[in-house]
């Protein structure tokens, strides 16, 4: 096993010593020299890319790895999501996958020596119609079979867990029950990015920020310049020069189709923005994460006291990340129906992140028809929850040249086999 470079260990002792000695903390990661050859090049410096780099080094001893990021680390979806983690999905494939992710999140603070502020506060998915309630029972039974703590509760229990919710029948969509998932919660998404970046850097992985990938270099393929099916990848062209590499992993969100088309690979993806908003901070009153599929909204309260709202994806494909008034209007009306007590709170800001939507709401992971070009894309609305496990599994896939069992259902070839994994537990799906 590769020895880790000595990084400053974060501990109470270190904090006290530096507090008294006025000694400053060292840089968290290096600004490495730009190399011309790497064993693996990972495109995208978010949770997925950094986790893949970390597990390549930690589990497989491959440390001659570069992570290329167009902006700064965590500037895409990793810093724009609403930081909710859960594993109560609907398909057995999805449940097994996200449960592994939750296990990794549970031990992350210890593994990465960084406080990721994981708060296992419980997750409520509200049902407002009979059919939604039926889906909740279905999800609960699928979850129980897989050994996941998940059950359907009645409105009185919802009220007991989250007193600020209006469970009366005098609203347009009364709460008929909820799927309660105690292990779900929130986590600080920036800390997850920094934790993986710091740990990967300690193993010697080169993190290149402000490095845009302009082209993927291929040879032997059917298309122009040797791209396309049947070819193999030989490197990437970046804004800072060419890199030769036998293995390239596309871990981008939003730009997945653009990067894949550079290698001559077409993906079943369309890019939609998902908007979110945050309010001014108030005292803690919301003890759980509340999700409503019918009202297209999810709410949680941060440690600072702000309410974070998310919605479903906008219907129109675009790469623009501006906010719209339609979103704010709809969000306000839906949230006030759930929690009439917060009518006087003001929104601080709203933003959007790019979601790569696939036809079956499941990701696309593993090898492509271009040898050496792997994808970890199409994460739609739940890429953040899956960060650790997809990093671990993609690292295994790249290192061993074999698709691990856990991600085998999510291969690109499922679309030509007609073997789709319909994940109706995704946030983008109304029930």
């Amino acid at each position, binding site marked *: 096993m590769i020895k880790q470079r000595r990084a400053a260990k974060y501990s109470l002792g270190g904090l006290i010593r530096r507090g008294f000695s006025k000694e400053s903390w060292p840089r968290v990661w290096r600004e490495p020299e730009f190399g011309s050859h790497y064993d693996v090049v990972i495109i995208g410096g978010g949770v997925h890319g950094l986790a893949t780099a970390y597990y390549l080094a930690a589990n497989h001893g491959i440390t001659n790895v570069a992570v290329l990021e167009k902006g700064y680390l965590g500037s895409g979806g990793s810093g724009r999501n609403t930081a909710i983690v859960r594993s109560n999905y609907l398909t057995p494939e999805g449940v097994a996958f996200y449960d592994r992710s939750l296990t990794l999140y549970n031990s992350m603070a210890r593994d990465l020596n960084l406080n990721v502020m994981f708060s296992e506060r419980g997750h409520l998915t509200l049902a407002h119609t009979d059919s939604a309630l039926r889906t909740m029972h279905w999800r609960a039974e699928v979850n129980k079979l897989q050994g996941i703590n998940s059950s359907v509760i009645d409105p009185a229990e919802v009220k007991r867990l989250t007193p600020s919710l209006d469970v009366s029948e005098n609203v347009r969509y009364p709460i008929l029950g909820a799927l309660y998932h105690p292990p779900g919660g929130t986590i600080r998404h920036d800390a997850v990015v920094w934790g993986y970046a710091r740990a990967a850097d300690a193993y010697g992985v080169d993190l290149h920020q402000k490095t845009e990938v302009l082209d993927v270099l291929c040879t032997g393929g059917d298309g122009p310049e040797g791209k396309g099916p049947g070819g193999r990848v030989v490197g990437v062209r970046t804004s800072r020069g060419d890199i030769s590499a036998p293995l390239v992993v596309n871990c981008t969100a939003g730009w997945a*189709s*653009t990067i894949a088309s550079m290698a001559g690979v077409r993906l079943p993806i369309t*890019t939609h923005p998902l908007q979110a908003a945050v309010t001014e901070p108030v005292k803690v009153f919301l003890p759980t994460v509340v999700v409503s599929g019918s009202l297209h909204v999810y709410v949680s309260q941060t440690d600072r006291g702000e309410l974070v709202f998310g919605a479903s994806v906008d*219907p129109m*494909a675009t790469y623009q990340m501006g906010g*719209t008034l*339609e979103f704010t209007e709809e969000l306000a009306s839906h949230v006030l129906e759930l929690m009439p007590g917060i009518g006087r709170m003001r929104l601080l800001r709203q933003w959007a992140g790019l979601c790569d939507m696939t036809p079956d709401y499941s990701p696309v992971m593993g090898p492509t028809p271009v040898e050496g070009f792997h994808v970890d894309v199409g994460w739609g609305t739940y890429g953040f929850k899956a960060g650790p496990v997809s990093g671990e599994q993609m690292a295994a896939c790249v290192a061993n040249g074999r698709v691990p069992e856990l991600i085998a259902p999510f291969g690109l070839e499922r*679309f030509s086999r*007609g073997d789709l994994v319909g994940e109706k537990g995704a946030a983008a799906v109304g029930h």
Partner: protein
Amino acid sequence: MLLVPCPVCGPKNAAELTYRGETHSRPDPNQATPEEWRSYLYLRDNPAGWLREGWFCSSGCRTFFTLERNTTTGELREPLLPGNKVAGRPISDGTEP
């Protein structure tokens, strides 16, 4: 807000229309190979730039029409279709009305 020019109703808020997504010509179901048919069903170009897309005026005149939109700037232009006298005529520069 995106103002979408319906050929019958005039400019309308995009929220009042139904988005039908990237348009491709459908291969002949009797002639197409399974591969061609599956790429028609699932694979998308999803360009960061000009995109030809379908819209449906679902809350108005119920016309189906095609537009070209730049997915990074929000600009709109008429598609290069047989009926258009001026091909690719710009409709909007993407700024807020």
